[in-house]
C-alpha cells in the first residue's frame, strides 16, 4: 500500500493536501495570507477526512519551510511537526520555492514552450521585497534543480541581477499538492530532507541597545 503523505504550506495562504503514492486524494486552500492560526486546524482536518482516511494512516508529513513572512510560516511548521508527533509519521521539509518552481516548469511544458532558460521564482516578502530562487530545470524524477538562492531582495535589484534574456519569470501560486509532488520526486532522487527549520533569510528585527545607560537619559529628556 503506497504511503499516505500530508502536505502543509503556510508560506502564503494556508494550503494542505493529502497524497497517496503521487496521487492527490484531497486538497484544501485558504488563499488569504493571514489567519493561518485560525485556518490550520480545519485545513488539516478537512484534508484528512476528504482523503477518506484516519489521521493515523499518514506515514509522512511534508512542510514548506518558506522563505516567507515569519508569523504565518511558523504556524504551518509547528502544525506539521506536531501532527507527525501525534501519528508517529516521518517529518520532511521542503523549500516552498521548490513547489513554486515545479508549478512554473509544469506551466511551461503545458504551454508547449521549448525554452530551456532557467526560471526565476519569486514570492512576496513584504516590505517591498521578494524572496527568490533560480532553477535550471527538473531532475529525471521531477524535482526542481536549484542553481542560485534562495535570497531576499528588492525587485529592482533582482531586475539588475537577472536580465530577461537570461531567465524566465512566471506567476504561479503555491499549492501543497506541488509540495507533495516535489517530495515524491526528492524521495526517488534520494534528496528528501528531514530538516524543517524555517527559512527566515532575515534577522529578527531587534537592535541591542548601544549604551545601556542611554536609556535613562532618553526617557527623562
Amino acid at each position, binding site marked *: 500500500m503506497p504511503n499516505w503523505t500530508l502536505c502543509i504550506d503556510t508560506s502564503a495562504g494556508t494550503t494542505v493536501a493529502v497524497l497517496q503514492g503521487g496521487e492527490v486524494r484531497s486538497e484544501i486552500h485558504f488563499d488569504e495570507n493571514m*489567519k*493561518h*492560526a*485560525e485556518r*490550520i*486546524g*480545519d485545513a*488539516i*482536518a478537512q484534508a*484528512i477526512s476528504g482523503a477518506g482516511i*484516519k*489521521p493515523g494512516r499518514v506515514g509522512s508529513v511534508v512542510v514548506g519551510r518558506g522563505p516567507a513572512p*515569519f*508569523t504565518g510560516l*511558523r*504556524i*504551518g*511548521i*509547528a*502544525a*506539521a*511537526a*506536531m*501532527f*507527525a*508527533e*501525534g*501519528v508517529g509519521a516521518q517529518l520532511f521539509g521542503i523549500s516552498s520555492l521548490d513547489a513554486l518552481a515545479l508549478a512554473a516548469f509544469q506551466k511551461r511544458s503545458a504551454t508547449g514552450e521549448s525554452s530551456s532558460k532557467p526560471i526565476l521564482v519569486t514570492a512576496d516578502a513584504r516590505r517591498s521585497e521578494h524572496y527568490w530562487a533560480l532553477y535550471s530545470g527538473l531532475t529525471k524524477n521531477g524535482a526542481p534543480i536549484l542553481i542560485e538562492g534562495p535570497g531576499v531582495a528588492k525587485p529592482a535589484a533582482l531586475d539588475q541581477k537577472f536580465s530577461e534574456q537570461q531567465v524566465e519569470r512566471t506567476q504561479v501560486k503555491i499549492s501543497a499538492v506541488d509540495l507533495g509532488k516535489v517530495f515524491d520526486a526528492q524521495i526517488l532522487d534520494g534528496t528528501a530532507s528531514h530538516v524543517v*527549520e*524555517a527559512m*527566515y533569510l532575515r534577522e*529578527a*528585527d*531587534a*537592535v*541591542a*541597545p548601544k549604551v*545601556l*545607560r542611554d*536609556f*535613562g*537619559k532618553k*526617557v*527623562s529628556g
Partner: protein
Amino acid sequence: MSTAFIIREAAETDLEQIMALENACFSNDAWDQDTMHFEVVAHHTYYLAALEGDALIGFAGLSKIPGNEQADIQTIAVAQSARGKGIGKALMLELLKEARRLQAEELFLEVRADNPAAQKLYLNLGFEHIDTRKRYYQPDDVDAWVMRLQFARTTIGREPIVLGIETSCDETGIGIVRGNTLLANIISSSMEEHARFGGVVPEIAARAHLEALRPTLHQALAKANLSLKDIDAIAVTNGPGLGGALMVGVGAAKALSVAIEKPIYAVNHLVGHVGVDILERGQLETPTVALLVSGGHTSLLLVRDLLNDVELLGETIDDAAGEAFDKVARVLGLKYPGGPEIDKAAAGGDPKAVRFPRGLSLPKDMEKHRYDFSFSGLKTAVARWVEKTEAAGEELNVANIAASFREAVADVLVTKAVNACLDHKVPRLLLGGGVVANARLRELAAERCAAHGIELRIPALSLCTDNGAMIAALGAQLIMAGRAPSSLHFGADSTLPVTSVQTL
C-alpha cells in the same frame, strides 16, 4: 455564578413531588405512580433529585443491571420554572459518573425528535445519535432518537489526562496533568537569547518556541511516563500574550488534536495562573483575589469561580512590573532579567534610602485607578535620581537604589492587592507570575496579609512562572465540569480578556 440547587439521591419520600413533576412535564405519557415507585426504590436503578430548598425541581434515573455492560438513562425531568440553569446537565453528569462507577461500557437513552435542546445537551456530553424509532412517542406520534455514549471514548466520570501547551511569551511550556494531579511540567525558556536586548523580543521568542516544541513535548511525555495515545485532550493558551508567539502554540495544538483525534480546549493564560493552585492543593479555594505579576502582565483579579466568574479589578496602564525591573536594571548597569539582579544588588541596601513614587496611589488617582498600576513613572524617577547623583559628582549607592526601587514596587503591588481583599471582603490572596520569585514581594505580602488575617497562597515558583501545567490544569477543570471542547477555528488573541476563560 453560584447555583442554588443541590443534587442528592432520590428516596421514597420524594415520590409525591416526583409524580407532580412527572405529570407536569409529561402530561400525555407520564408514568403512573406504581411504575415510578418501583423505579425509584429498585436495586438496579439510581435516581437523583434536584432540590431548591425543599422544592423538588428535577429528577433523573439510571438503570444498570449487574453483569450487563449496557446501562440506560430511564428518564429526566426539570421543572419548567427551573430550566436554563444547568440542572439537566448536572443531573446527567452525576448519572454518567455513576454509570462509569458501575462499570457500564455503553449508556443509551431515547429523546424526542422534536426536542433539539435536549439533543444538544446529550451530544455535548458525548452521546451519538445511532438510530431513530419511528412514532415512538404516543399519542403525540413523535419519533425517538436513540442515543449512545461509549465510556471508552469519554472522560466523564474519571480524571482526564490533559496535555497543556503554553507559548504566550518567552517560555515554551508543556505540562501534563491527570485531573488535579501534576504529572509533568517542562519549561524551555528563550530568556538568554533576549538578554542582550534587555527585554523580550517577540520575533526571537516566536522563533525559539518553534524550535523548542518537539524537545519539550518529548521531555514532558517522558517525565509523565506516557505516550500521546494516553492523552485525553489538548489545552492551549490562546491569549493574552505576544501574538506571533501564541500562534506557534495554537497551530501546534490544533494539529496535535487532529492527529490524535482528541478534543482541544483554548484557554486563558491569566486564568491558568490562578487555576494552577489546584495542582498543589487539589482545589482552588474561592473567592480569592489573585495578583499576577510578570514581565508581560500586572493584573489584579477577583475570582469568585475559576470557570464562571473571574473579574479584572485592575491592571497596569503602562509597563508590567517585570518590565520595570528589567528597565531599572539597565539604568543601574545590571544584567537581564532585572528581577533577580536587582534582588541581588538590593541585599544590604536601605529600602528607605530614597522614597521613590508609588504609582497611582495619590488620592486623585485612587478614585479612578484604585486597583490599577503604573510603573513607567517609577522607572523614570530612578533614572533621574541616577542622573542627578552623577551630575553632582556623588557616588552611586546601587544597593540603596535597588532596595528602594524594589520596595516601591512591592509596596504598591501588595497595598493594592490587600485593599482589594479588604474592599471585597475576600480573606484570600493568591500570587502568580514570574515576579513572585522576588523575595521582598513575597516577604511584604506575607507580612501585610498576616496583619489583616488574609490567607496568602504562593504556588511553587515552577508553577508561578509561565508553564504548560497550568494550562493543562485549566483544561482538565473545563472537561470535568462537562464543558464542550473548542472548535478548530479559534485564533490567538493577544488582548484576550480574563472574562473569556475558554474560547469556543
